[in-house]
């Protein structure tokens, strides 16, 4: 291509042309073009699975593209590792931090570098790192140990790592997903200070208001294809971006029969609980779910959703408040008590919580039935009954395995989710708590899962759907609660995405309505 040789009028630090990246069964990037100017924040917008992270992983040297060229500072590059990328001045801050908890900030920054050689000279490097941190307003104590730091501070360490290595281009992969609002403000200040000093930033996100606030230009990806490239942010509105990102004006709705809600099945009153670090995660959550109702819980990840699910089924101690299921108090009762009351949980983590990887499909589907007739008999597990039961579920839920003796670790994500759904639904739950039930599944599997959930609703089960995918929440739920920092911000029944968005960022429903009246 001859255009690569032409000098650019405006300094493009990075240009990616015709990037193609295939994964088994998925075309993650299809002929994607991208460019980044010096001193700009360029947002990369798209839904989950649109190919944003894939594209940036190519730029950061983690993936090799199947096609296309990457040009950095007017030179065609071919990175084979992140080290090559950082040598060319490109650094990526991932969603999941890669830090050693027991070591100090400085030690983490220095990790993997050739300097210092033998003696650590920690005070000297502490000063050096504090200097860089000060330059960009990254407030963090170089001598502090990582485990003592908040998530926001840890992210600053990741940024420092990249700056120390001389990165001119910083790729931030959904940096705000893990941050509290005040920390987001802090981060944005840092980003502005960095661009003012000539650094360039790629800001990956699917949150419109953040993109509108921080970026100079935006590129929108949808299903691996660029739908609009390098739009100046001043020329678009939020609604435009939403349309470009989702690709359709209205939210797609699943066919859903009308079901008249019945009795209250789950009633949560002023629930309080701590997270794993012993900090308050739920600060007085109250909500109701009725028979034949799907109630959505919207919120940015890490606002107490997973703690709520665990608390409701008895996996996490309740510190205050009450959980009532079918008029029975299940507060701080053992998990098994809840199971007997017809409480069922589809956990967010299919492999870490939902299944036992090296046990067979049979052993996995009897997990909550092994001690009840007909599978549990006296002190024994009746293997014949268990296998019969598993074979029935395999048929009914179309689980693709050669035999029910297969270890579940060999199953694909969709099939694994079918195993879990089969187990949970066949227990005929009165209350089903589904956490991110379609995350990471392909379109066909997602539809199947959603159909199963709606069938449960039609059968009169009460369903609490906890999800970060607004579209899914809106299309499945009859009502949506919004959680923010462990508190319910409000409830909407008409699927008003504007209101939900505002509540997800910490505005209470009452405040929104007052503003509306004013």
């Amino acid at each position: 291509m001859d255009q690569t040789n032409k000098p650019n009028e405006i300094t493009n630090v990075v240009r990616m042309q015709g990037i193609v990246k295939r994964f088994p069964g998925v075309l993650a990037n299809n002929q994607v073009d991208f460019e980044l100017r010096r001193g700009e924040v360029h947002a990369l917008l798209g839904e989950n699975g649109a190919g944003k992270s894939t594209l940036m992983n190519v730029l950061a040297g983690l993936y090799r593209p199947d096609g296309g060229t990457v040009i950095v500072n007017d030179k065609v590059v071919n990175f084979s590792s992140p080290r090559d990328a950082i040598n060319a001045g490109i650094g990526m801050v991932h969603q999941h931090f890669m830090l050693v908890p027991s070591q100090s900030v400085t030690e983490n920054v220095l990790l993997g570098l050739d300097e210092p050689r033998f003696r650590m000279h920690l005070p000297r490097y502490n000063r050096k790192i504090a200097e860089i941190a000060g330059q960009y307003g990254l407030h963090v104590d170089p001598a502090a140990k990582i485990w003592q730091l908040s998530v926001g501070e840890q992210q600053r360490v990741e940024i420092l790592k990249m700056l120390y290595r001389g990165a001119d281009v910083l790729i931030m992969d959904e940096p705000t997903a893990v941050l509290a609002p005040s920390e987001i403000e802090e981060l944005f200040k840092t980003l502005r200070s960095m661009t003012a000093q000539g650094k360039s930033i790629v800001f990956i996100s699917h949150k419109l208001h953040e993109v509108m606030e921080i970026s100079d230009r935006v590129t929108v990806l949808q299903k691996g294809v660029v739908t609009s490239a390098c739009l100046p942010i001043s020329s678009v509105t939020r609604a435009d971006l939403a349309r470009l990102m989702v690709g359709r004006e209205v939210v797609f709705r699943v066919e859903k029969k009308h079901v008249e809600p019945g009795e209250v099945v789950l009633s949560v009153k002023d629930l309080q609980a701590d997270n794993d670090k012993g900090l308050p995660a739920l600060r007085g959550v109250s909500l109701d779910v009725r028979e034949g109702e799907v109630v959505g819980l919207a919120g940015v990840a890490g606002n107490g959703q997973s703690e709520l699910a665990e608390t409701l089924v008895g996996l996490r101690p309740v510190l205050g408040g009450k959980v009532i299921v079918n008029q029975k108090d299940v507060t701080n009762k053992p998990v098994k008590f809840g199971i007997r009351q017809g409480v069922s949980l589809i956990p967010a983590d299919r492999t870490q919580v939902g299944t036992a990887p090296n046990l067979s499909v049979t052993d996995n589907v009897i997990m909550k039935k092994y001690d009840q007739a007909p599978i549990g008999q006296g002190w024994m597990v009746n293997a014949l009954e268990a296998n019969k039961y598993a074979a029935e579920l395999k048929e009914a839920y179309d689980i693709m395995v050669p035999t029910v003796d297969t270890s579940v670790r060999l199953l694909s994500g969709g099939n694994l989710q079918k195993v879990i759904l089969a187990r949970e639904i066949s227990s005929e739950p009165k209350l089903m708590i589904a956490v991110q039930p379609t995350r990471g599944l392909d379109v066909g599997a997602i539809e199947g899962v959603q159909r199963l959930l709606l069938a449960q609703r039609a059968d009169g089960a009460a369903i609490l759907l906890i999800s970060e995918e607004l579209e899914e929440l809106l299309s499945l739920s009859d009502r949506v609660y919004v959680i923010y920092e462990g508190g319910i911000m409000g409830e909407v029944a008409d699927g008003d995405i504007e209101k939900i968005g505002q509540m997800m960022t910490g505005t209470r429903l009452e405040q929104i309505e007052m503003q509306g009246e004013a």
Partner: protein
Amino acid sequence: MTQADSTKPIMGFKLPFKMKVEPRVVDPPRWYSPMLSVIAVVVALMIGALVIWLGGGEPWKVYAHIARSSFGSVGVLSDTMVKAIPLMLVGLACSFAFRMRLWNIGAEGQFFLGAFGASMIVLLPVLPEEAPKWQFIIVMALSGMLFGALWGFVPGFLKAKFNVNEIISTLMMNYIAVEWNNFFIYAVWTEGGFQMSRMFQRNAWLPRLSDFAEAIPVFRGLTTHMGLLFAIVAAIILWLVLSKSQWGYEIRLIGDNPRAAEYAGISISKNVILVMLVSGALAGLAGMSEIAGVVHRLQGAISPGYGYTGIIIAWLAKLNPLAVILVSILFGALILAGREVQPSGVPTLIQGVIMVSLIAIDFFLRNRIRITRRVEE
């Protein structure tokens, strides 16, 4: 992850085929895992042979001698069994705990406490000296199991309540157990200043095959004792529990994924304590059967590291209680061979090599090697 590709020419020489290691996508057949164990043993024997050969010995003669001196006649077979009995019980103790991924390294200490608990019945004395043999057997067995279980309970409780790493606590408990016994044989129950107790009276001995020599003459001089029966019964019970019972299902589930077990409403702390109790009781029974069946007194050197060998046996048997019996007999033979083969380190060396081969060969359970003919480009 494990992509070892031999497509690159090795030292300029191109192999006529490609070898690729790839993760298995289907479960291997049932016979595959035991077959790998057998291969591991064969490989270990071959490495042992190499060492013997390098040391100037004649490997096949040595092995033939080992085989003869362990299985060659009814007499030596009986001796092999005597060596195998404590290994069986200790191997079962380890297998049971390991099934739940509870790393009980303390079978050695539980063995010593079991021996102490059994001796106490005779030496304290708990039962009068002239009590009938059946009373002694039952009470000594129960006491041995109780003390072993107690020694297992401590780390189990610490793990359940305070999440203390059981590997460290069980290991440390071993040293305490040895010193505990030493206190009694040096001070309390010492016989004339020697570091051993008095010999137990005959009605506190486990019956041996030779006791029935009058009725069945073949049994003359055979020292295999009732501990063998204990071990076989324990193995069958354990197999039933692990593969058929609801409790066994809970143990397997916790072993594979504790978080999934918790989510299914199974109490992990309760099971940690229960499994440590049973595991300790089995190791304690091993100590009791060794004291009442072989040594007939409490003394210092009652175990050449049975508790640790039990770990190897458990792994070699793939944590299958029935296989533990067979593997223990093999190891009993190796221990017996120790006094026949000079230098006697060779059988121990083979044990170690077996362990290493076993761990290494597990790779093939998770991965497969595909050999394809190289197509000329």
